[in-house]
């Protein structure tokens, strides 16, 4: 059977690449911000897959990558908020 860490790890690789490709491809700022969030989710998925490896033998999976990804989720949403605010300001100055 295919282990879960390989399935989800490769899903992470897929999400990372398609997010990155879309970030480069799109013209609209909002679409780019959305795509970079998908890209980040792929990175998180790879991290947590590595943490999960061999978890059947352990009481809990490796908590260190979990803590890093938790930090990452919160930082990603703050960065998204800042990027959206920058985008709004840009549009407002373009309208003037």
């Amino acid at each position, binding site marked *: *059977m*295919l282990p*879960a860490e*390989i399935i*989800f*790890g490769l*899903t*992470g*690789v897929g*999400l990372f*690449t*398609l*997010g*990155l*490709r879309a970030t*480069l*491809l*799109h013209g*609209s700022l909002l*679409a780019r*911000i*959305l*795509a970079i*969030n998908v890209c980040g*989710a*792929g990175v*998180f998925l790879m991290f*947590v*897959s*590595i943490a*999960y*490896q061999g978890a059947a033998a352990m*009481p*809990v999976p*490796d*908590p*260190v990558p*979990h*803590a890093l*990804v*938790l*930090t990452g*989720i*919160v*930082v*990603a*949403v*703050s960065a*998204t908020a*800042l990027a*959206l*605010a*920058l*985008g*709004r*300001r840009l*549009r*407002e100055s373009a*309208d*003037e």
Partner: protein
Amino acid sequence: MNALLWTLLDLLLAAMLLGLGWAAVATRDLKRGVALFIAFGLLLALAWARLRAPDLALAEAAIGAGLAGALLLAALRDEPRHEKLAAAHSRAGLWTLNLLSVLLAVVVAWALLCALEMGEGLRLAGAVTDHIGQSGVSNPVTAVLLNFRAYDTLLELAVILSAVLGVLALGPARRGYGLPGPVLGGLIRWLVPLLIVTAGYLLWVGAHAPGGAFQAGATLAAAAVLLRLGGVDRAGLPAAAVSRWLLAAGLLVFLGVGLSLAGLGYGFLQYPAGLAGGLILVIESAATLSIAVALALAYVGGWSRSGSTQPDSTQGGSH
């Protein structure tokens, strides 16, 4: 049989994640893309639960899918006209990009498989399990965040603070929402107190079970988002002067505890035995309030104009 069933479920979840992720970034309609992204975040929370990371599942559902989705939707509302999604690309450029993407995917997949192949390698999981008794909490993720790698979390709070200061510096609040209909209004009256109680529970339970400051802060921020959608322009935030202090409280308390311990000769953020649990709870409580205020302010988009309680008043115009 059991293993086969697990694999099938894993493959199904993975395929849905990839499909939703693809659809969210490939669609020509931004509104659709954001809706798909929220669904993607919820499925990602399921994937975290599957990979035995319940702390992440809680955070993803509240922050990744919930607040990020709310932020994107609010930004979408500001969008005056629908911009063209894809910039014009030449055929050759598109093919080069596709080729490079596939190459990158192969290289990263190879690196990941090599890392998985290495097996246990150098892991810190053992060190965490060995020392968790001295950390003051029994949830390993909280122990890593607030004790073993407390520097990371301290600096993370600084990152959140600077991001929100950036948002605040860039302009006034977005225009507010009108008064809700009876159904949404009733729902908000029920949900907001429930969310506040849940946040308190998550903060307390984080010491020994999945939960903690980030999840609790995000839940409080969700209550603020709901209030704003219900026509409360300030989203339940206290006056600006108080909000400013709350915004900085997490970082200040964290630094204060660290420096006091350094002054007492324990070393920066080296908690003395016996006091660790209490100190972590103090830091987490302050961090919860800061994270909640930060995320709520990020959603509101800036300080509300003073005294303006009229929804959809003059705030929408170009400034």
